[in-house]
């Protein structure tokens, strides 16, 4: 990556939201869910139940904003480990073919020497 692109990555690196952002979002969600529950007061609405159940998950996503970064980091590690395995596989295959070629060259050379010694 050239210098400009490095500078762009730096200049555009992720910026954290203002303080209190997560709390404001969760508050908004609670308000929104309260409005929903008042509209559907008589029935045990599975959709609503799921959304309520999702609030803790959503709160975790918001409050722990670095969750995605940690997740991305883990994904990158997984990708890197998989890549490492493939690198080693590729190098082993290459090695075996190089050794095969080397053995063949040696065999040809040995045959040639044998012929010369016989003559």
């Amino acid at each position, binding site marked *: 990556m050239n210098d400009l692109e490095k500078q762009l990555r730096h*200049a555009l690196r992720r910026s954290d939201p203002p303080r209190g952002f997560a709390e404001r979002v969760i508050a908004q969600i609670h308000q929104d869910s309260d409005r929903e529950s008042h509209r559907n007061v008589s029935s045990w609405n599975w959709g609503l139940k799921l959304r309520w159940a999702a609030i803790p998950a959503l709160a975790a996503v918001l409050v722990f904003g670095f969750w995605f970064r940690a997740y991305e980091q883990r994904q990158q590690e997984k990708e890197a480990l998989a890549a490492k395995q493939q690198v080693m596989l590729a190098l082993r295959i290459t090695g075996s073919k190089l050794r095969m070629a080397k053995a063949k060259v040696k065999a040809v050379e040995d045959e040639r020497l044998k012929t010369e010694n016989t003559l």
Partner: protein
Amino acid sequence: MVFSIAYRFLRDAATAEELAQDVFLKLHHELPRLESADHVKFWLRKVITHRSLDYARSAYRRHAVALDEIPEPAVASADSDPLLAAALRKMVASLPHEARMIVVLRYQEEMEPHEIAEMLAMPVATVKSRLRRTLVLLRGKAQRLMGETVR
């Protein structure tokens, strides 16, 4: 991520927060239908990208807030130039909407051109050529501004 995409694109902290809040509110409703963390991440990126673009294109605009109001991370990278970084952010903000979003997705989110193409529903070749032209433009502007060679 969500706030940051909107913020880097719109250069308006208040609007970015508003849009991000809307997106999370929507996520709250969509969450049961999303299948995995990857899906959530993809969904969030896509929605905030399109919301930001729609906002920028719409006739209703709020006055942009100066970038200085939001503090940048305290630790500066040893190999970065803060003046150039600030200049680049301003230049990126002056780009046409789609080019600007392509740059944000490429350099903030580190998305590949084919991922950006899928996100913006445009051909990969278009993404790549816009990225190329944008980099040429930014390089030229940066050089004129900084009076030095930016490779």
